[in-house]
């Protein structure tokens, strides 16, 4: 009896093993299909279809108003690193626009979006969050729409993003001190739609 049960169990395990192998193979086939930068698929008689995944930043542009100054930082297809802005007088304003472009052939979805919360300190390290209430900071689409998780970026589409940093005109002057503002970081994570 035990032998019969053992045999049944063994058979079951083998079936499970085979199922896993098949599933695993299918996954690897899918991975191979997408990780490879290009797959040529012949459909019909004379049609070639190229599949690719390519989300990138493009067309970066900065602008300042008043005495604001900007250092633009390092730029790559997926990064704008360590730009810095300097304000001198209330009313100074900095804006940066860039395109997020889907140059691939697969539609994409914004799975994650985050922007920094302005960490402000005086020269000696004291908290300056009260003074930072004189700073307006927003990251939005250039048409004024909010950026939201779930936003779609179809293949071939691009969306222009605008970053605005403004020193309010009616702010009281900052006497005998400076304020450093960190955490202006922004992150977009796009996944396949």
């Amino acid at each position, binding site marked *: 009896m035990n032998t019969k049960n053992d045999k049944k169990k063994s058979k079951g395990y083998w079936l499970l093993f085979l199922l896993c192998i098949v599933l*695993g193979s299918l996954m690897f086939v899918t*991975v191979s299909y997408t990780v490879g930068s290009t797959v040529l698929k012949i459909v019909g008689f004379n049609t070639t279809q190229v599949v690719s995944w390519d989300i990138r930043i493009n067309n970066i542009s900065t602008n300042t108003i008043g005495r604001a100054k900007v250092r633009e*930082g390092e730029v790559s297809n*997926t990064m*704008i690193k360590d730009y810095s802005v300097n304000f001198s007088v209330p009313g100074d304003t900095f804006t940066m626009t860039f395109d997020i472009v889907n140059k691939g052939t697969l539609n994409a979805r914004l799975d994650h979006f985050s922007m920094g919360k302005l960490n402000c300190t005086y020269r000696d390290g004291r908290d300056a969050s009260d003074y930072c209430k004189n700073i307006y900071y927003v990251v939005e689409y250039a048409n004024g729409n909010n950026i939201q998780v779930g936003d779609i970026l179809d293949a071939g589409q691009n969306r222009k993003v605008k970053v605005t*940093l403004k020193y309010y005109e009616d702010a009281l002057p*900052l006497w005998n001190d400076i304020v450093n503002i960190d955490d202006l970081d922004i992150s977009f*994570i796009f996944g396949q739609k």
Partner: protein
Amino acid sequence: MDKNREVKIIAVVALLVAVVGLSVAYAALSTTLEISGSATINSASWDVGFVKGSHTTTGGATFVEPTVSSTSITGYSAKLTMPGDSVTYNFKITNQGSIPATLGTVNIGSISCTGTDSAEAAATCANLTYSVTYADGTAIKVGDALAVGVTKDAKITITFNAAATTVPANPVTVNGMDVTLIYNQA
């Protein structure tokens, strides 16, 4: 028993492989775009002052340029000889600080004339026109704003009226041409 155990192990490994495969498939189609930055707000500064200008003369008038510092214009002199002669000294008032300013005090002197002949000097003074205004002729007055980054053009003009019918026989010194402008934080 050993064989069963072996089969179980193989099945678990296969499951793990399938899960890893799934994870790899999920991770491959994802792109992160990152922007990092910082900002600094500078300390406020107060910087309201004069900027050296130029002069114009008409007729036979002559002019000696002043010494100009950020807060004073001193030592200029004008010489008028005939009716119609005039001197205009153009200068600028600028706010290069980061704090808006407002004009709190305006003292523009009234001219008086002295000479060896006091009557002649007084008569000469009556034929002189002295003014300190903005370049467009509008009055400089208390309350005038001077915003950050703004520069205003102003001028000092002294004219020997063209309608005067006499000229002094002796030199006449014109006094009282001092001007004081006090700017305060707006």
